């Protein structure tokens, strides 16, 4: 256990020790697991706001933890990944925790909740991927030129949140680390969704038993908000909250609003 940006960091080995998962934890209160999106884990004001009410555990997707980059090659597909997360939750001693996820991470949270319904007490999905509509295809962000990415993820690519995620530091080492980290995070998550992010969730989603809240940025340019209807239709009792003035990452563009939505849903 060590500290990192005010969080407790620990590395837990899963998958016969061949995948090392680092988990950042902070706060107190009921347990909440946060599954980050395709651009890596950033400890943001949104997570700090949640940590005021919950014990937040944020695992890093396999391959995205420092020094464990090649661990991603030890997973062959989504089934392996979901089993890893189940092993991780077991090691953390979490059953019935709140699962909160963003984008790719929301898909993973939903898959875990479908495969192991008792692991998920409540489920909050922020602009999740995982389903597919021919009339509203999900944009493949891995095909975008680097300079076009912020404008697709954020409503306002010039916002502080966008600049924080897609920073280009002046310092050479920091610049290399940021660029490599971002690309590797996209590659390590992309491994489970290429070339179309529909890997069968539609066959399993009915198994989700947890009360579910969907949160969608009204101006999501990657995953059109129309997908909220598909999730609501297939998860019993799910409801949706649309966040104004936000794109694919509403928890970063409107952190206070989204943190309050999540808090009040989990406290209900």
């Amino acid at each position, binding site marked *: 256990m060590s500290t990192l940006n005010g969080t407790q960091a620990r590395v837990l080995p899963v998958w016969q020790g061949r995948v090392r998962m680092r988990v950042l934890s902070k706060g107190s209160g009921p347990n909440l697991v946060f599954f980050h999106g395709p651009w890596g884990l950033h400890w943001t004001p949104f997570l700090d706001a949640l940590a005021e009410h919950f014990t937040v555990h944020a695992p890093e997707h396999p391959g995205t933890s420092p020094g464990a*980059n*090649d661990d*991603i*090659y030890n997973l*062959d597909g989504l089934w392996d990944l979901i089993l890893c997360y189940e092993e991780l939750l077991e090691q953390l001693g979490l059953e019935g925790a709140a699962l909160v996820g963003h984008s790719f991470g929301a898909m993973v949270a939903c898959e875990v909740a479908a495969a192991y319904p008792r692991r998920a007490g409540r489920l909050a999905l922020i602009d999740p991927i995982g389903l597919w509509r021919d009339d509203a295809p999900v944009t493949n962000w*891995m*095909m*975008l*030129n*680097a300079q076009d990415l912020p404008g697709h993820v954020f409503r306002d690519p010039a916002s502080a949140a966008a600049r924080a995620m897609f920073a280009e530091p002046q310092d050479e080492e920091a*610049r*290399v680390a940021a*660029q*490599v980290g971002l*690309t*590797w*995070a*996209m*590659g*390590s998550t*992309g*491994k489970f969704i*290429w*070339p179309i992010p529909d890997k069968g969730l539609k066959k399993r989603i009915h198994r989700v038993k947890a009360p579910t809240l969907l949160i969608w940025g009204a101006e999501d340019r990657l995953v059109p908000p129309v997908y909220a209807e598909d999730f609501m239709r297939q998860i019993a009792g799910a409801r949706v909250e649309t966040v104004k003035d936000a794109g694919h990452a509403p928890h970063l563009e409107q952190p206070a609003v989204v943190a309050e939505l999540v808090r009040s849903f989990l406290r209900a």
Partner: protein
Amino acid sequence: MKISAFHLMPHRELPQDFEKRYPSVWVTPPWWELADPARVGQYYNWTLDELLFAARAGFDGVCTNEHHQNAYGFMPSPNLMGSVLARATQDLPVAVVQMGATLPTSNPPIRVAEEYAMLDCISGGRLVAGLPLGSPMDVNLCYGITPMEHRERYREAFALTMKAWQAREIFAWNGRYYQLANVNLWPRPIQQPHPPVWVPGSGSISTFDFAVENEVCYCFLSYSGAKSAKGMMNGYWDVVTKKGREANPYRAGFLQLVAVADTDARAEELYARHVEYFYHKCLHVPAAWFAPAGNQDYRSLQATARNPMRRPENPKELRYRDFVEKGYVIAGSPATVRQRLEEEVVKGLRVGNLMVLLQIGSMPHELTLQNMDLFSREVLPSLRGFWEDEGWVNHWWPEKLRARSEIQQRPLTLPSPPMGERVREKVASSPHPSPPLGERAG
């Protein structure tokens, strides 16, 4: 050395404003707006005729390659083309160089091993088996292979291919990506233990290691010439030395764009617009597509981030004279081309297996034949002897064709494709008619 004619089979008539109107020549160019199947049939037949012309004109090999959803070169199945070439060159000492069928996009990949074995049988043992990784555009974007699995799939398929050609017993392949319970290839290649293998690369250090460890010919299929390839090829030769192998020049292949005319000035008149068409339209692809996330391993990614590929210029802003001056294209009189090829490519990069691209972009059929004809008469004979005096063996060439090519009777009559009459007529009226046999000794 061995000199082969390479062909991309491009769309030769893209609209003038193509690169402004469309985001990419690859993956997304709209077929219905840009192409006509009957006309494309003509391109395929021109391509075959041009390669057969090269075979008859004295080139050592003819090369085809695989690309998908792509106006800059669209032979989705190079083996269909190679099959025609193998059959039509049966009387010639010419290698059929497949550069080649792409393993990760063939499922199961033993399909490539089978088709190559067929080509080796049909050609009487004249196949060079190119086993490319395939570009990210082809493999990841068009064929849906996960970028992070691309290289792993390739390496597994490569090992499976080599074993499938050579195994005496039927075997089971319980791989990570491929599972086959009864591998028992029919047919097997004539060349034993297997046809010579060439692996194209683009400078990744892990491919250098792979090429040397597997004893294959490493080929750089470059569009930016020898000057910018120098550092990279030096890196390759360093790995060859470090791993204790001889610096046999036949371990290296290189592709060079070449345009020959009577004089340097005439070359500019004839070829400038085709060269510019090639670099401005045929290579019009969004940068991100060359390296989708996960395609490069972590180590290579760090190396690339630290030393971004230095591209001091944007090819879209260059004109013919820039391309020639910088060596992207070697163009000019026979003397100019001979001298630059020898200095910059053959000696400069230590290349024993040279490939030349003589049909460039929009270059029409007749002009392509002129270029090939002049190259074969005025350039090829003087280069062919290079490396001979050093006594290296070209282990990466079909054994029956390894001996120095003697000047032989290669009648320059073209085959009879559907438009054969028209083609023959054009050849006959070419300003560079085929010379009598002896002149080619040069």
